[in-house]
């Protein structure tokens, strides 16, 4: 009988430019450093069984990532795991919590509903509140991505300009994050005419359905 654990972690500055795929590799290596008995898939090219809740775009940081990991049944007590893993976590991964869950639970990705982001603007910008208000007033917001036109507006659940903190403006967003219905923070920024490379995007929460 395999064991399934769920780890909540932050993806911090050092790993800002580590891709989704490379993040899996970092996890695999972390578990190997901890001598955890990773459960591998069967077949020609065995891969460790792991699932991340929602891919985080390159360049973003996060304090709310969730990964499910399957282990062989000779794994250590789940109560000990957090401290074991923290000892070997690489720069860029900060483990917050480790819990055991039922191996039969549905995949994490299917339960993601929305995600919340805090965007920090590196430069001062004029008329930000007008831009945000104008965008929110619209019923539709046609945008093009990879040659396809889609409506961004219904993917935005919430968009709020925060008071400048230390001279830097912040924008809070809650966007849908379901398969085929995913709002992208950089798309919202472009719609606000803010160059994404002059911002820092941090994911603060993933909202799951039950």
């Amino acid at each position, binding site marked *: 009988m395999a064991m399934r654990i769920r780890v909540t972690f932050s993806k911090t500055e050092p790993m800002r430019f580590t891709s989704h795929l490379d993040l899996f590799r*970092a996890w695999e290596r972390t578990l*190997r450093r901890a001598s955890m008995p990773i459960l591998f898939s069967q077949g020609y090219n*065995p891969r460790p069984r792991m699932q991340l809740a929602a891919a985080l775009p390159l360049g973003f940081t996060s304090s709310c990532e969730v990964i499910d990991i399957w282990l062989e049944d000779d794994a250590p007590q789940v109560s000990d795991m957090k401290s074991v893993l923290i000892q070997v976590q690489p720069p860029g991964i900060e483990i917050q919590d480790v819990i055991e869950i039922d191996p039969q639970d549905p995949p994490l990705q299917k339960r993601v509903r929305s995600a919340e982001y805090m965007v920090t603007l590196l430069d001062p910008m004029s008329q930000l509140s007008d831009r945000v208000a104008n965008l929110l007033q619209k019923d539709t917001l046609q945008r093009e991505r990879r040659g396809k036109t889609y409506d961004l507006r219904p993917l935005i659940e919430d968009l709020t300009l925060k008071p400048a903190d230390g001279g830097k403006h912040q924008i809070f967003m809650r966007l849908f994050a379901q398969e085929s219905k995913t709002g992208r923070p950089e798309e919202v920024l472009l719609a606000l005419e803010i160059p994404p490379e002059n911002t820092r995007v941090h994911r603060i929460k993933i909202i799951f359905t039950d």
Partner: protein
Amino acid sequence: MVLTPSEIQERITRILPRVRKPGRYTGGELNQVVKDWELVQIKVGLVFPDIYDLGMSNLGLAILYEILNKRPDVLAERIYSPWIDMENELRAADIPLYSLESMHPISDFDILGLSLPYETLYTNTLNLFDLGKIPIFSYQRTSTDPLVIAGGHATYNPEPMHAFIDAFVIGEGEEVILDIVDAYQSWKQDEASRADLLKKLSRISGVYVPSLYQTEYNKDGTFDNISKLDQEVPLPVVKRIVPELPPPPTRLVVPFIDTVHNRIPIEIMRGCTRGCRFCHAGMVTRPVRERSVNEILDAIEEGIAHTGFDEIGLLSLSSSDYTHILDLVKAVNERFSDRNLSISLPSLRIETVSVDLMDQIMDQRRSGFTLAPEAATEKMRQIINKPVSTPQLLETAREIYSRGWPNIKLYFMIGHPSETLEDVQAIVDLCKAVLNEGRKVIGRRAKLHAGVSTFVPKPHTPFQWAPCDTQENIQAKQDLLKRNLRGKGLKLTWTDPEETMVEAWLSRGDRRMAEVVYQAWQRGAKFDAWKDQLNYNAWLEAFSAVGLESGFYTHRHRELTETFPWDHISTTVRKKFMVQDLIRSQSHETLEDCRDQCYACGVLPTFADLRRAHPGEVWGCPDVPNHQKQDDLLQVAVPSPEV
């Protein structure tokens, strides 16, 4: 005005989202060593003049990184070339090239140590200096500029880079790097001139300071002689070695992004006793020194604990020749077989025992099995001294296919002066015969990949007198291969003849070649090792701008008496031995493994004292008896000048 690390950090923040694979430029990985810049006396930048993806797999620099950072008074940081998109961004934003650990401009370092394993990094080296705002030419640098040193296999002929590198390390770097740091430290305390620093360095065994020598040429353009400008510098400069391999680095930096090799590299042995006549590495890395099985096992264990890599590379020039290979494979299998690792054992001999070894070491992914017959006819095999029989190869191939590897890769080399089109046709026939063996065992699943490189007569090998094949001949031979090696299950890759020419010019160049390197770089040459970046015209234009004939370096007939521009660098394999071996080659005479019989290549007399202090099977060379008197011993130990 030089930027501070925080200014650099601030500026690249805006740039990184726009470039490809920004993870190349951030540093911050697991196991990187960051020391307090203000508290450490000597700062060394370890440079690989190509991109991060390649540089992170360079074992030499990983070794030096660990050795240097162990010293509390020294820090070592990593520096790589930016890819072209990042270079453009850095230039546009006026950001100097910086180190990954602390983001200091590379001009802030005391010492920059470059790894130059191959020649097609030369223009990148100049470009890297330029990006770091460091004077390109050695003579332009002052006491406030970093000391630029370089080592690696290409520097056994340092002359084409003599104008750009302040001091070369000839041979193995593990010990000499600390001597260099010490010399630098005492020079810094004395507040002496740059010339004093170079003088100090030139007294260290294994260090070559080109500016303390001058060269002369004959009327026909051939090299005449090199002479000292300072009476105390060595001539010849004898390579430095370590008598025993120190423990391998295991606290390797773990990249966040995918690189060329994501593995724990462990040298099981250095050097090779096979004596393939074309093989530069086999000549310059002598003598053979082995690590013990236990040391290797411990290193694997430690490496996994520190990095979490799932790939282990057990490296050597000829794994089959490692004395305890059977014990090693058995022990690795016992200890690691249930850990889902992929363990590679490259450079195996062409015999069925090799298949047993690979079978045991359980590379689970069984995608491909690589062998290097190099030649397909008996004649060529004798000439290059790599005797393998075709029946033996076919038997080995059958065994490989039947034990679950569907794909065999065979390495060949074309372009030797004695080679005819028949010898090249034999490559085709051999590949088809090998594939046919696979078809018999696993049917149409069987695949064969022929990787065909082109011979470059490397300095310090018995073939150093040989000319390169002409471009027309190479083309004709490659065309023959391309015409005939096609069809289901067959794959052919080859080296672009232009790339071979650039490699050959730079391998065989003299001091005058430095100007060609400079001119080629000025005309846009960089990333010469990248097929899609090689700018051949820039090189041709550079030759004509300098007034040199490129064919002089590559296609000329050389007399056995000719003095080469690299003869003053001693790998300790004597020129006399190489002449004899060339003559043996011409009469198709082969040499056996020199562990069975010493052929007196010259290594042992030079390092007799080291060998005496480290007796037994740790070296491939015979023991040196202890009963000689101290006087005799000294005589043996002093390197004799080349023929």
